[in-house]
């Protein structure tokens, strides 16, 4: 079996992963980066490309931005991480630009107040765009930044498990999708930057297809603590049909400003004044109406933007969005009248971002020695709700922090012996090919995704959460009886099998945490506990594995 070695192994080929890898290399580490998709083709690329950049408007400050993060996060944030986010945000923006990207500038060539947007939850305008391709330019710049660096890149390679030397993480078992090869990578430290797990809710997600929560499961399986996994952000406006684009994002609350409305199936207004509301506030109001039976035949509500056309600034907004190409998807799905805001859009919330994730300290270190996390894979910065446009800057800030710390930890250290369990872990993947069981791993993914959307989605109740746990257990048993193709190159059955195992693990963590949090806070809406419970629940929920058993506990927030 092929064995590769490095100081720092970075899992994930998006903004956080590439930044972490390039930074670790700059600090002298020998780095391997593994990306499940071609490098730079993940959620960073498909984002709209808006980044937070505090301080461009008079009266703004890092302190004010920090307070907004906490308020928006409903005070579940890790205050130290939130402060780093605020303080280093401008640095993160510069770091990405140093890879070749450029954010929007005014006619003086500066990122000034005249290019900043106001997005719900921010006290002042501080979100900057990057026309016209949005995140595509970020993806291109990240690839260029990786190419400029001396890191080794393995594209379309998936880690199936982490290897340990005693308690210390020491490498990973990997599967090369194009070549069909199982191999090992030995490393002094591993950084998980695999993004979130929106795909658990497919088709109701606007995330890229590879975003399965692999990193959460890898970390959990070696004993790392994860924080607030129940906090899943659903963007309020995703398409409901046709099936091939269901879940695709069409906008965030500010899209509706100033006069847009949300109506139910009977045309009754259920929400107005959306422009200043956070994503969680809009999504939760929609979820309550949908659970009351107010949804359309497609399971959505009606976003009515026509009232904006009566105002000059409303017509201006239509023009801006048209120029940026943001309305094309609506024309594609719903036709010309919807494109022109003359006909309401059928929308339902769509899984977008995980506020929860691997618990880390201010150096990006997890609770397991040698294991780091960055970007969406880590948790704690955003608490119970993330403000729009902060997640992109987050990638570069925390990718940088983890890359630097991991490099410093392992440069000059002797390679660790990771032979413990490596043959068995590799054998588990090698033996998948050609299995003649009954169930397709892809069909099992669909079954899990259905139960997650129906029972652990935008509106939760105890009964549904328990139904989901039972279903998760049943699918786990079914995973013993898989039907897997025997082809060598590009065997998606093997990829789907590794993924479904990770997805089941993450699904369980989300559901257990959602069951424990008996209140409604941020993105977590419990219909059976509709109020926020400041007295009992200003607490983080921590999940981890101990002696092979699932553990869950709550800890007071760190204020």
């Amino acid at each position, binding site marked *: 079996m092929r064995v590769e070695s490095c100081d720092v192994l970075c899992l994930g080929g998006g903004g956080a992963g590439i930044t972490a890898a390039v930074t670790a290399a700059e600090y002298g580490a020998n780095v391997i980066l593994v990306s499940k998709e071609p490098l730079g083709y993940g959620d960073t690329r498909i984002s709209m490309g808006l980044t937070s950049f505090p301080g461009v408007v008079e009266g703004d400050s890092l302190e004010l931005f920090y307070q907004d993060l906490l308020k928006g996060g409903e005070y579940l944030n890790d205050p130290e991480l939130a402060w780093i986010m605020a303080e280093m945000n401008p640095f993160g923006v510069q770091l990405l630009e140093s890879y070749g990207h450029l954010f929007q500038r005014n006619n003086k060539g500066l990122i000034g107040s005249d290019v900043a947007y106001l997005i719900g939850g921010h006290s002042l305008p501080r979100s900057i765009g990057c026309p016209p391709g949005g995140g595509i330019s970020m993806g*291109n710049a990240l690839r260029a930044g990786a190419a400029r660096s001396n890191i080794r890149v393995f594209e379309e390679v998936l880690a199936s498990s982490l290897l340990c030397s005693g308690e210390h993480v020491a490498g990973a078992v990997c599967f090369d999708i194009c070549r069909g090869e199982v191999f090992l990578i030995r490393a002094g430290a591993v950084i998980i930057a695999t993004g979130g797990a929106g795909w658990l809710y497919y088709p109701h997600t606007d995330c890229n297809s590879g975003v399965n929560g692999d990193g959460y499961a890898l970390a959990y399986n070696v004993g790392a603590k994860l924080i607030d996994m129940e906090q899943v952000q659903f963007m309020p406006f995703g398409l409901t049909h046709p099936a091939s684009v269901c879940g*695709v994002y069409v906008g965030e609350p500010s899209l509706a400003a100033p006069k847009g409305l949300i109506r139910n199936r009977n045309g009754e207004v259920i929400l107005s004044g959306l422009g200043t509301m956070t994503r969680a506030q809009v999504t939760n109001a929609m979820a309550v109406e949908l659970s009351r039976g107010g949804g359309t035949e497609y399971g959505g509500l009606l976003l009515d933007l026509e009232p904006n056309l009566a105002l000059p600034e409303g017509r201006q907004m239509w023009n801006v969005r048209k120029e940026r190409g943001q309305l094309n998807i609506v024309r594609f799905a719903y036709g010309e009248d919807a494109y022109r805001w003359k006909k309401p859009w059928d929308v339902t919330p769509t899984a977008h971002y995980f506020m929860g994730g691997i618990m880390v300290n201010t150096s990006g270190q997890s609770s397991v020695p040698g294991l780091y996390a960055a970007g969406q894979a880590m948790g704690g910065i955003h608490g119970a709700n993330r403000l729009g446009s902060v997640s992109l800057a987050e990638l570069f800030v925390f990718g940088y922090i983890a890359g630097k710390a991991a490099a410093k930890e392992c440069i000059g250290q002797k390679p660790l012996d990771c032979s413990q369990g490596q043959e068995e872990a590799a054998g588990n993947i090698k033996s998948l090919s050609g299995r003649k069981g009954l169930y397709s791993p892809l*069909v099992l993914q669909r079954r899990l995704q259905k139960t997650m959307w129906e029972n652990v989605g935008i509106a939760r109740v105890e009964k549904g959460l328990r139904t989901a746990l039972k279903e998760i257990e049943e699918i786990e048993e079914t995973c013993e009886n898989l039907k897997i193709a025997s082809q060598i190159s*590009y065997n998606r059955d093997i990829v*789907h099998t590794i993924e479904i195992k990770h997805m089941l693990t993450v699904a369980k963590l989300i559901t257990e945490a959602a069951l424990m949090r008996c209140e409604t806070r941020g993105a977590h809406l419990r219909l059976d506990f509709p109020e926020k419970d400041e007295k009992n629940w200003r607490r983080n929920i921590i999940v981890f594995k101990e002696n092979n058993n699932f553990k869950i506990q709550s800890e007071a927030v760190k204020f």
Partner: protein
Amino acid sequence: MSETIIVSILRNNPENDQPPSWCRYEIPFEEKNTVLGTLLYIQEELDPTLAFRYGCRYKRCGLCAVEVDGKPRMACHTYVKDGMRLSPLSKLPVIRDLVIDRESFFLDLQKRFLFVDEENCNSGIVLEPEEGAKLRSCAECLSCFASCPQYIFGDKDFGGPYIFVKLAQLSLDPRDNRNRHKQAIELGINRCLDCDSKCYCPNGLNIYREAVNHLLSKSS
């Protein structure tokens, strides 16, 4: 009886010695279904071994480019029609079915220095012309290679449209100080002079006007 349509896909299995062959699939008709929706249906319901790439499901990631009736298209925003024939992007090496080998394109970024050097990259005041900003929307889907009559994979003397888009974008970035025009000449851009082909870009770039012409005019 619900209505169905037929699509054919060029299947290619490098692990046996058979040449690629067309397979027909009967799928239920659905209003506004896409080529990608069709591929996902086949993978889920009919044949899980069908290999194709996709990511975002609407026009941003650049992973799902295939040929539809012999023309490069993004599977995610092409409506499917009865009788369509789907094949991998031509001119590029095939790994399996609709999946082409992308590995060399990352290596190209390194070999051809398709990045801004770090010492020049400190941002601050930067005035990038609009033409340059526009070229940043290249999703690196590689469709343009498939529609270029000059391009041959592995030809060291001809870069091809994707590379020319990169070179033009870099030459318009005020922070870049390599001679991209010279590079374009070395990579055979003069071959584009007499070519009346319109390289296809699903994101709407006019590759000839916005990239090739820019590089040619600066180098003359």
